[in-house]
């Protein structure tokens, strides 16, 4: 992990990469939901209690995918903003250096107007950067809360699977494990990202 105080733009890129992985896992969750529906249909009456759960798995997959995509987009935007911010900060640093080195120059104040513009642009970028961090942080919390339901869903799925008969039991327990596994992995990525985001705030 890079030092976020000096290499914040690297940290943001790392967050974006982590969340990209989360989106891929969310897509696996969607496959699990389709699979669950197919198994429940085949099992017929014996999986009657399982069928409504597939709707919840579907919904969870849908929310997770759309939220992951949104988070991913926010992280990429933040990554671009942070790269712009590095450039702006860098330019300001160089301007300061020039003001010291050429302080006796009769023309030093010919830089003032452009320096002011650069400072204003830097301020604007700072505000944008903070706002995008807040948005990312909020969206991560929302998805994290939503994923708590995955544990309940997996437990209920296991209970219903045990009543579906030997033929379908294994497939349905597998669905429950997949839901829990995918949700767990996504939560880990989110937790990591939340920790990284908190160092940027």
């Amino acid at each position, binding site marked *: 992990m890079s030092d976020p105080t000096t290499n914040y733009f690297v940290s943001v890129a790392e967050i974006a990469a982590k969340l990209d992985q989360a989106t891929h896992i969310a897509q696996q969750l969607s496959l699990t939901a389709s699979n669950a529906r197919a198994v429940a249909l085949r099992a017929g009456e014996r999986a009657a209690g399982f069928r409504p759960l597939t709707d919840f798995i579907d919904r969870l997959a849908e929310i997770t995918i759309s939220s992951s995509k949104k988070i991913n987009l926010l992280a990429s935007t933040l990554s671009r903003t942070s790269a712009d911010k590095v*450039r702006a900060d*860098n*330019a300001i640093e*160089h*301007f300061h*250096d*020039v003001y010291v*080195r*050429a302080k*006796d*120059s009769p*023309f*030093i104040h*010919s*830089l003032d107007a*452009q320096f002011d513009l*650069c400072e204003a642009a830097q301020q604007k970028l700072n505000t944008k950067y903070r706002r995008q961090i807040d948005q990312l942080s909020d969206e991560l919390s929302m998805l994290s809360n939503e994923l708590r339901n995955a544990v309940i869903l997996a437990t209920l799925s296991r209970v219903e699977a045990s009543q579906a008969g030997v033929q379908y039991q294994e497939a349905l327990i597998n669905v429950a494990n997949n839901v829990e596994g995918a949700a767990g992995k996504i939560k880990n990525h989110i937790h990591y990202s939340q920790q990284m985001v908190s160092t940027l705030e």
Partner: protein
Amino acid sequence: MKTHKLFENGSHSWLMFGRDDDKPEQIIDTNQYLVITKNNALLMDPGGIELFSAMLSAVIKQVPADKITHIFASHQDPDIISSLGLWDQALPSSTLHSPWLWESFIRHFGMKSITYAAIPDEGNSLRIDGVNLEFIPAHYLHSSGNFNVYDGEAKILMSGDIGAALEEVDAPLFVENFDEHISKMKMFHQRWMPSNSAKNDWVQRVRKLDIDMMCPQHGRIFKGDDVKRFLDWFEALEVGLIANSG
């Protein structure tokens, strides 16, 4: 960063910047040039990012920022123009004159505000406040899209990497003993310059110009008879070679 006046008359002056004591050790020392006319200035091969603060500080001691209306980059190398993203913040209204071949590459250094004036392969000229500066083709010497700047009034040729020498940061400004200077240039020209025919074509064209000073981007300036000595030596030199490969 040291500043030397190379030429001055009623219409314009030439300054050279270089021999930067403060530059980080592992980067090559570079010469930068500035032509100042009545209301404008052309900054040539302004250098890398590492040099920007020193360079802008040196330039701002000579002219106000809004007078630097033109920048020239002989080619795309980082020691020539990787500072572009910072100049873009400092001189957003200026125009960058550079080979058309490198436009989409040079823009990678960051260029939001500066205008790119692409120089066609055959070269062209820039007239500022009545002073005529010609962009002379020097392709494959060493870059595949490459120009020199010639000022017929000052009789100065800014030759980019042609005539460059690798030497100490405190080296004298002018070549003092041409024969001794050869050892500092030979490997550079043989290794970096890929084409004998491009080299000979350039020598033939440049021989027709009236030149008092030939100013490379690294090393020392050639003055008077040393310009002809350089052209003779360069014409006879086999280039496109790796040392010890024959």
